[in-house]
């Protein structure tokens, strides 16, 4: 976290807060001041934070819906093919055609839930870009507390008008516990 880092090698500037209220306040002020590329790191989800940072809502529910629908169709066509088209078997005189649909509902339902649940979890991980064991922000000062008791606000260098000095000055003015600059260079582990 050397302050002598040039703007091009800086990943982000982080400010550390002690509770979610201060963080939300800071996030709103920072967004209103015109900064972009905002991010926050918290030990639990804070309501209203993604809006305060200017992030859009996630598309995950749509993915899960499509996943679930795929599951239903898989269950249906699998049973249709196996029980009706490929090898119909007379079991106790029960219908071997579409009349068997009620007995197919259970497996269709289970396939729906299975596919939807897998889409939810793996979709969430994929959209989050996880697993990603290393990230520059882990080098920030006191970042281990981000998963315990501290709340970090970050102005990232993806902001088109990113300037280290300006970002640092703005964050200092919000009276955080500390401000640190995170560089993109990976320290030798």
């Amino acid at each position, binding site marked *: 976290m050397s302050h002598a880092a040039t703007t091009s090698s800086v990943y982000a500037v982080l400010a550390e807060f*002690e*509770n*979610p*209220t*201060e963080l939300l306040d800071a996030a709103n002020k920072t967004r209103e001041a015109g900064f972009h590329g905002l*991010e*926050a*790191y*918290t*030990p*639990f*989800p*804070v309501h209203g*934070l*993604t809006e305060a940072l200017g*992030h859009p*809502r*996630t598309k*995950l*529910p749509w993915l*899960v819906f499509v996943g*679930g629908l795929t599951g239903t169709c898989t269950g249906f066509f699998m*049973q249709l093919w*196996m*029980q009706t088209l490929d*090898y119909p*078997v007379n*079991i106790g005189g*029960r219908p071997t055609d579409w009349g*068997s649909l009620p*007995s197919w509902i*259970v*497996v269709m*339902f*289970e*396939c729906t*839930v*299975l596919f939807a*649940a*897998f889409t*939810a*979890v793996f*979709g*969430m*991980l994929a*959209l*989050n870009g*996880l*697993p*990603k*064991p*290393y*990230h520059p*922000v882990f080098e920030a000062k006191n970042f281990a*507390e*981000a*998963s*315990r*008791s501290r*709340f970090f606000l970050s102005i990232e260098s993806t902001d088109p008008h990113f300037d280290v000095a300006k970002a640092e000055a703005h964050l200092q003015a919000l009276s955080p516990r500390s401000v640190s600059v995170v560089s993109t260079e990976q320290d030798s582990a």
Partner: protein
Amino acid sequence: MAALTPNPYAYDAGDAVLGGNHTYGSLTDKISRPVLDPTIRPGWALGILISGSVAGLLFVTIIYLVFTGIGIWGNNQPIGWAFDITNFVWWIGIGHAGTLISAILLLFKQEWRTSINRFAEAMTIFAVACAGLFPLLHTGRPWLAYWMLPYPNTMWMWPQFRSPLMWDVFAVSTYASVSFLFWYTGLIPDLATLRDQAKKIWTKRIYGLMSFGWRGSAMHWQRYETAYLLLAGLSTPLVLSVHSVVSFDFAVSVVPGWHVTIFPPYFVAGAIFSGFAMVLTLAIPIRKWYGMEDFITNRHLDNMAKVMLATGLIVAFGYAMEAFISFYSGNTYEVYMIKNRMTGPYWWSYWCLLLCNILIPQLLWIPGIRRSAGWLFFLSIVVNIGMWLERFVIIVTSLHRDFLPSSWSMFTPTFWDFSMYFGTIGFFFFNMLMFIKVLPMISAFEMRELLSKKLRHGHYGGGHHGGGGHTAPSPATSGAPAHGPVGTEPAGGAL
């Protein structure tokens, strides 16, 4: 709101869902301590030793069973299913409470679920693992169990999808996978905490890999919360369907005592009943031995007892309907079935069942009993036994005397029936003890969320009158604050 003479069983607004005087830091540390503390508690070691040995018995039983065959059990004709399916349904039922607590109580916004949902979900996974052993091994040729899956094969055959036994394959596999995903997803942020708090390099690396590099980014949390909510919404109908499908194993048949339309809701209510009993059996010792009374409070015990009472009443209604309809039907076989249950050779199991599941749980109407850890522990064991007996009665007494008297027989369990059953109990407790040691048994990030609500609103369940907002950052106080008396100002978010 304090009474003049403090009553330990009193239920007032002071029964908070989160007690003590915690900060985010102290709460996290308390939950992480059993995992990160390298010292091995002698009680835990003893538990591992005993449960491990009993699990070893399971291992030996399985090997003997696979090599020799189902004949080592007491199953015969006509009692083709006995302890094996009784135990299967018992374990699956126990598993359902975990999903109910995680998923259904989340959807109902019941905040008291937060401190119990992690180990309840772990309980579900281990219970389903134990349950799965039985349908797998009772097939007689378990090495061919993959025949139940719909894969293109050299016999050019497909499974029979009209059978509840096939529905079971899909339902239970889906339930096992989805429960595991739900549990693991809930663990990811806590694994990140362990990664950050661990001191030893290999501990850090392992938790780091398991947490996928979670860093608590706001956008990640948004997607995470969405996925979590969706999983809860999916798991709710799933858990209802799984036990309904298990009940179809019986209801779709023609055997008197099995062909009962009330079975799906009766089984689901019974599952929740026995599941909450097992959660109590686990929660009461854990909170005592790990000092988690601030997180699993009297309010939790009270609420869990109420759920047990409610589902117990539904189950009682199910028994009453079974008996009534059997007589009311006038069908010779149905009438004989219920008479045989009440007065035949297995009469003792039926009346023990009514005692354990209907009579004794009525004690839960008494508030003092609901808030007493000792009474609840006793009651939870009674209900666990009663629910096992229920499945035994349904399966064995219906099968041993059905339509044709010349086929009637008796079932006597063998040593291997018992060794398999108690072996799975040992395996279950072994897994639970290992879980307590390597993973956080309470969902730390959800507890922090709960704490933040409490600090923000000043009162939470009334026990603490904190300020409306957070205190300004004070010079860092070293160490975690001690559990102060009720009513002291919570120290905001400062460490």
